[in-house]
C-alpha cells in the first residue's frame, strides 16, 4: 500500500531530478485513486513556481514539434511537457506518439510525459491539473501542456494555463472561420505554423482582422509565424510567451487567472466524483431494477431520475 513516507520520498527524489520518481508520482495522480488525492495534496505545498504554457490547435498543425522546440529554447534546467492524446472510446487504448516529434529536439533535456484521456467523463480536467501540480512541485519550469484543440474539455485544459498558445496553419480557413472559431478567442499568443507554405501571410491577415474586431483588454494576442520543423520563428514565439507572462505579472491578471483556474478545478473535482457516484448508482442492482422499468416504459426517464438521483434527499445515501 502506498503510504505517506513513500510519497514524501518520491517527491524528495523527484525534486532532486530523479525522473523515475517523478514518473511514478504522475502515474499515481493519473489513476485518480485515493492515493492521487494524497499526492495532489503533497504537491500543493510546493507548487506555484512554474510558468505554465498551454499549446493547442487542430490535429496535425505541429503542436508537438513546436512544444519540443520551445522546451529547447526555454533555457531552463528542467522544462517539462505534458502531452495529452485521446484514448479510443471503444477499447480504451491509445497511441501516444508526441514524443517522436519532441525527442528530436531533446537537447532540451525536457521531461516528457504522455497522457491518454482514458475516457472517464471529466477525469482529464482533474488529472491534468494534478499532473501539472506534481511537475511544478518537482521543480520543473516551464511546464508545457499540449492538447488537441477539439472538444471543450481539451480546449479548456490548454487554456487553463498562464499563457494559452493556439496554433493554426495556412489554409485552415478564412476570416469568417476565424471569427466563429471559439478556440481563437482564448488565445494569448497565436501561431501560424508551416509558414513556409503558401498564404501564411493571408492567414495572418485574417487573424489580424479577427483581433481588430475583438475587444482588447490590455493585451492583444501577437501572431507569430513559425516553421517549426526548421526551428524558424521559435525564438520569437518564446519571446512573445515571455512578454505575455510579464504582462500577467504587471497587470495583476496572473492572480485572477490562477484563482479562476483553481475555482474551476474545485468544481471539476466535485463533478468527477459525482459522476462516479452516478455511474455506480446506475450500475448497481436497485439502479438496474429502475432502468428495467424504464425499458418497459413503466417509468419515464424523469421519474427514474427522481428515484435514483443522489441529489434527491428522499433517496438513502449509498454506501
Amino acid at each position, binding site marked *: 500500500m502506498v503510504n505517506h513516507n513513500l510519497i514524501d520520498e518520491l517527491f524528495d527524489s523527484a525534486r532532486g531530478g530523479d525522473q523515475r520518481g517523478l*514518473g*511514478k508520482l504522475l502515474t499515481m495522480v493519473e*489513476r485518480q*485513486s485515493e492515493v492521487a488525492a494524497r499526492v495532489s495534496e503533497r504537491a500543493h505545498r510546493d507548487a506555484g513556481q512554474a510558468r505554465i504554457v498551454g499549446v493547442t490547435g487542430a490535429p496535425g498543425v505541429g503542436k508537438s514539434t513546436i512544444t519540443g522546440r520551445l522546451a529547447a529554447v526555454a533555457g531552463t534546467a528542467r522544462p517539462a511537457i505534458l502531452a495529452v492524446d485521446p484514448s479510443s472510446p471503444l477499447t480504451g*487504448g491509445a497511441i501516444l506518439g508526441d*514524443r*517522436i516529434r519532441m525527442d528530436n529536439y531533446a537537447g532540451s533535456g525536457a521531461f516528457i510525459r504522455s497522457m491518454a484521456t482514458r475516457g472517464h467523463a471529466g477525469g482529464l480536467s482533474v488529472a491534468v491539473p494534478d499532473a501539472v501540480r506534481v511537475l511544478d512541485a518537482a521543480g520543473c519550469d516551464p511546464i508545457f501542456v499540449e492538447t488537441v484543440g477539439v472538444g471543450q474539455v481539451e480546449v479548456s485544459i490548454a487554456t487553463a494555463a498562464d499563457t494559452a498558445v493556439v496554433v493554426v496553419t495556412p489554409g485552415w480557413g478564412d476570416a469568417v472561420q476565424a471569427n466563429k472559431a471559439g478556440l481563437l478567442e482564448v488565445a494569448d499568443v497565436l501561431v501560424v505554423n508551416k509558414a513556409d507554405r503558401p498564404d501564411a501571410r493571408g492567414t495572418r491577415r485574417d487573424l489580424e482582422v479577427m483581433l481588430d474586431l475583438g475587444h482588447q483588454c490590455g493585451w492583444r494576442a501577437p501572431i507569430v509565424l513559425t516553421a517549426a520543423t526548421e526551428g524558424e520563428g521559435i525564438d520569437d514565439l518564446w519571446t512573445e510567451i515571455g512578454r505575455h507572462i510579464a504582462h500577467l505579472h504587471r497587470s495583476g491578471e496572473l492572480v485572477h487567472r490562477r484563482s479562476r483556474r483553481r475555482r474551476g478545478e474545485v468544481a471539476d473535482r466535485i463533478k468527477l466524483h459525482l459522476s462516479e457516484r452516478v455511474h455506480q448508482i446506475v450500475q448497481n442492482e436497485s439502479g438496474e431494477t429502475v432502468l428495467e422499468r424504464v425499458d418497459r416504459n413503466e417509468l419515464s426517464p424523469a421519474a427514474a431520475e427522481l428515484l435514483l438521483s443522489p441529489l434527491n434527499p428522499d433517496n438513502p445515501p449509498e*454506501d
Partner: protein
Amino acid sequence: MGEPPVNASLPPSAETEAPIRVVLAKLGFDGHDRGLKVVARTLRDAGMEVIYLGLRQTTDSIVAACEQEDADVIGLSMHNAGHLTLAPRMVQAVDQAGLDVPVVIGGIVPADDVPTLTDSGVAAVIGPGASAEEVVSAVKASVSRQAASQ
C-alpha cells in the same frame, strides 16, 4: 496532519484496471517501421497505452522514456540482424537503470537465436506470422510475470 479528507464513497483504487503502458521503439540503425506501426495499432486495440518512439532510438533514450512514462513493458522491433547485439544491451541498460521493465522483441529473429536472447534476459520473442492475439498475450504475459516476480 496533512491528510486530505478522502471521500469514503470514492470507488476503490483503480490501479488494477489501469491500462498497460508499453514503449515501442526501433533500436539503432534500422528503418523498417511498418511492422512496429501495426503492432502499435494492435496493442492499442487491445486497450493498451502505446508510447510510440519510432525509429533510431538508443538504449538511453528508451530508458529515459520508460522512466518518464512509467512504462510497464518495452517492445523492440528488429529487422537489421542486430538483435543478438542490441537486445541484450537493452536488457542490460534497463537493469543498470534499476528498472523492472520486461523487454519483448519482435521482427525477424531466427528460431536458433531465441534461446540466446531469452538467456540474456529478453522476456519474449515474437516472430513473423504471429497473430494479433499472440502479440497481445505475449506482452500481457511478460508484464504479469514481472509483476509476480516482485
